[in-house]
């Protein structure tokens, strides 16, 4: 087996992957020049982001998690994290936060090498993760810029109540929109929002088609490693834009061709030859050794047919679409419905549904040291899913952006043992 990892420049990419990369690079360019172009900048988070609303105020959108993961893929976060720890941040806490703070301390140069501007407003629409709240308090402490909070209640009982929705809508009307109007100097136009939401729904339709294409054998996509490319635009600064709709149209066409040709997913080393194992994966990926991690799967013929991480910035495959006829209510339902804002029983049911609908051979948890929102309860979830589906489950541990917590030998060893176990089970079942 070839253990070498490709140089990123040599990696094979579909046209959509290149387009996604270009879009993200353009957003960094826009951020770098925002203030000299007289534009205002917002910072906000991926889960529960209000991208369509922010676009209504002509704000350039900065997403600190995306900065952290992009920096990690470029091997920059180890130094950032250590910088933050030197300045008093605990080794125990989220490395996305420390990477962001360390990057700021080291001059706030973004992942593409261009400077990131001081935000004019922090839009704290935190969904499913308490750390976000502290993160923006820490960023505000550094910048002293305006902060507006959108508190999104947790779906503890497995449903969105009228009280939750009204609370979110009320905050949007009374706090978020007036603050954005004041900071941007742009008056809110609900018809403009409706137009963006219409565009979002189009992109969401195509994204869901792409994700559900993995129900086929072989799956034409990898819904985890490939999935993070596919979700990039809709999870970040592009949802609601025509660019995003065009991206998803292109992606759908590309995946459709793969499907028609009976081809497997693209990997950095070309099309995957044989689909041997179909997995559902829970938890975010590791970003510092993303390619190496992915290779451990495709070298073994393992394809991820569904993942929870591709739902962290919005759950669309159970029917939700942004609705231009109910714009604020729709934004509320979007925020309330993000994956980590769902109770553990909901998440467990969702993964069981994926196991069934995507005909998975197994369930894998990639448990992330930084992320209690995902991690707390995953071991119980694993046992529940194993019990309910009768399929083998496995557990590995890595981190988001801290290279110290990616132990390739251990992870590879566990994965290989797991794949062997699935193969043995399959052989026994066939006998």
């Amino acid at each position, binding site marked *: 087996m070839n253990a070498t990892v490709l140089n990123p420049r040599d990696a094979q990419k579909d046209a959509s992957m290149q387009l996604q990369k270009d879009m993200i690079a353009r957003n960094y360019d826009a951020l770098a020049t925002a203030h000299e172009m007289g534009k205002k900048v917002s910072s906000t988070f991926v889960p529960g982001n209000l991208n369509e609303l922010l676009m209504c105020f002509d704000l350039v959108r900065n997403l600190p998690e995306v900065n952290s993961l992009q920096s990690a893929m470029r091997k920059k976060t180890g130094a950032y994290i250590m910088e933050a720890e030197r300045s008093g941040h605990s080794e125990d806490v989220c490395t996305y936060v420390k990477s962001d703070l360390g990057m700021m301390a080291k001059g706030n140069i973004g992942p593409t090498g261009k400077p990131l501007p001081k935000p004019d407003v922090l839009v704290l629409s935190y969904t499913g993760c308490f750390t976000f709240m502290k993160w923006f308090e820490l960023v505000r402490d550094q910048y002293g810029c305006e902060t507006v909070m959108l508190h999104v209640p947790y779906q*503890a009982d497995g449903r969105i109540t009228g009280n939750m929705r009204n*609370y979110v809508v009320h905050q949007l009307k009374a706090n978020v929109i007036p603050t954005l109007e004041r900071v941007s100097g742009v008056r809110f136009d609900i018809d403009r929002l409706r137009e963006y939401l219409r565009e979002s729904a189009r992109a969401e339709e195509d994204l869901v088609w792409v994700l559900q294409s993995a129900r086929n054998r072989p799956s034409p996509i990898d819904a985890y490693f490939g999935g993070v490319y596919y979700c990039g635009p809709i999870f970040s600064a592009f949802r609601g834009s025509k660019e995003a709709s065009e991206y998803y149209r292109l992606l759908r066409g590309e995946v459709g061709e793969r499907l028609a040709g009976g081809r497997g997913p693209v990997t950095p080393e070309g099309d995957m030859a044989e689909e041997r194992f179909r997995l559902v994966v829970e938890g975010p990926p590791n970003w510092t050794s993303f390619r190496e991690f992915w290779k451990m799967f495709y070298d073994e013929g393992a394809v991820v047919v569904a993942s929870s991480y591709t739902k962290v910035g919005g759950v669309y495959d159970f029917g939700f679409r942004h609705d231009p006829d109910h714009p604020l209510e729709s934004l509320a339902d979007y925020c309330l419905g993000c994956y980590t804002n769902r109770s553990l029983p909901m998440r467990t049911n969702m993964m069981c549904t994926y196991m069934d609908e995507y005909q998975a051979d197994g369930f894998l948890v990639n448990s992330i040291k930084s992320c209690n929102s995902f991690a*707390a309860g*995953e071991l119980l979830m694993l046992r529940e899913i194993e019990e309910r589906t009768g399929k083998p489950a496995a557990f590995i541990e890595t981190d988001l952006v801290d290279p110290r917590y990616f132990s390739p030998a251990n992870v590879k060893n566990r994965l290989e043992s797991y794949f062997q176990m699935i193969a043995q089970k399959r052989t026994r079942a066939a006998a």
Partner: protein
Amino acid sequence: MSVKSIISRCDALFEDLDFHCVREWKQAHPGALAIGYMPIYVPRELIHAAGILPVGILGGGDRLEVIHGDAYYQSYICRIPRSTIELAVTGRLDCLDGMLFPSICDVIRNLSGMWQIKFPGKYVRYFDVPQNYESDIGGQYYINELQVLRDDLGRLAGRPIPDADIRASTAAYNENRRVIAGLYQYRAAKPWQVPTAELYLLLRAGLVLPVEEHTRLLGEYLAATDAEPRPVRDNCRVVVTGMFCEQPPLGLIKSIEMAGCYIVDDDFMLVARWLLDEVPLEGDPLQNLSEAFLKRSAESAAKFVARREDKGRFLIDSVRHNRAEGVVFAAPSFCDPALLERPMLQRALNREGIPYTAFKYAENSGQMQPIREQAGTFADSIKLWSE
């Protein structure tokens, strides 16, 4: 009663991980229920008004061997959820008819879902509280959530909870808060008379005793300790912060004191001190509880501070009000809220020239010598170098 006998009783309650006193209370009140709650805050008034015994669950401390609990959690997650699961799966929490999981962090929030899966017959509620503190926004949301809790508790108790009962319960908790505030004031004035290890045990007793009994016990303690003069030491005065969820071992509190520190304020068991003022008894009782929560409640890392300039103000006010000479940051390992909060609070203290020291612990920490040395060095530095 003497101080010794009161503290001895509290210590027995503290040591009792089988919650015998809850079981005895239920036997003495046939048909009555008990409901557990975790840190930081739940409106115990509503539970009490339903005739249900509220029981604070703060993990297993250093007195519980965690065998099953570790199988539910990765090594990088704090200890309180694993010992709480341990308490439950070993049957120690069978006396509870339900559990409330307050909005504090991702771990406790997800524990509510684990409880739903593991204990499907039990009442489980994640108690979400607003991070928006405006009466007509966060307040309206909160009143509706309180109403849901009230309805749930009424169903469990087999009768609706009338306003009058909530007012009566609010009065009982007002009295309890008033006496606890008095105890804190007394300790700040004469810390040698109220060793914090004793105060801690007194507060812990309030998590399992009916509120009326706890209030009486506090009153008896105050009278008893005031009648027993104790030696005054040349200790420095500190505020400890960060211990609002996973509890420190009692030995850790004693170690800080033995190292030469008088603890004059803390964030232990905030449920008993969350509401800072008396809650009005006239008018809508849920609105009163809501307004108290929104406008006059304590600060902790689980709460969003809307204005940058207010960050750390609560802690600084405590230092000034209690004439503390320094702050001890003691946070549980892997406690995201406390550890993420700490650098901001430290910067606020730096701006005010207030010295501090910081360390981590776990509820089952056994080695106190390093903490004693660190706290002792901190106390010495204050004594020797502070102006």
